């Protein structure tokens, strides 16, 4: 199967916040970068990294 590779115009600073429901939680996420046109091509060669915390850190953003 040929897969068309697309580059979204979004960056870290401009990707819109989207939402998806799972486990009874409404998760906020952003996605950007090079992506495959069809979902079935999301194989090991194009899989995405997942990074915890959109605005840059994994530690609590407000002090304890």
């Amino acid at each position, binding site marked *: 199967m040929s897969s068309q590779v697309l580059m*979204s115009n979004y*960056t*870290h*600073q*401009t*990707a*819109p*916040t989207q*939402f*998806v*429901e*799972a*486990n*009874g*939680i*409404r*998760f*906020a*996420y*952003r*996605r*950007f*970068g*090079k*992506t*495959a046109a069809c*979902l079935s091509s*999301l*194989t*090991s060669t*194009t*899989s*995405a*990294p*997942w*990074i*915890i*915390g*959109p*605005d*840059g*850190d*994994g*530690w*609590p*953003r*407000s*002090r*304890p």
Partner: protein
Amino acid sequence: MTDGLARDREVILFDNAGVSSSSGEVPTTFEQMAANAIAFIKALGPKQVDVLGFSIGGMVAQEITLQAPDLVRRLIVDGTGPRGGQGMESLTQAAGRLFGATYDPPEHVWLAIKFSPSAAGQAAGREFLKRTHLRQVGRDPEVNDKVSPAQIEAMEKWAFSERILRLSEDNPAANTRREWPVTTCSRLR
């Protein structure tokens, strides 16, 4: 950094349960945080992902790998440490001291946490803070007051766990790339 990664792959960033824009409560264990993260990944649909986690995100990422080894192609962790590992208790104390101090403005906590005290380190930290203000539209709101206590409780349970997390023993398949063990947080070491 994420734009650099995005040149060759799709990058997906998310708020875990109870953090900033996501609903729900922050669990008090990294195991539960990982279970939420796995549910999120599966809801989006990819069959396999590379997981990158910084700090406590790295601890969640390790638990994701243990709970769903087939979902994780690669595990990349930074500035984090192993469950029950040597030095993790002192990391907790050092983290408590740094996070417990008062900073003016409050965001200067990151100059202490993430950057060395040297002039060069602090200058790099101030550039980092500028970058965190670049996003103008749709910024994540500040986390609520429940987030830090839950994360700290999870951190303490993780640090003092008698069950040392060893991916190679608990899950041989997850260790094929020899990216284990990780070092503890370089700033706090």
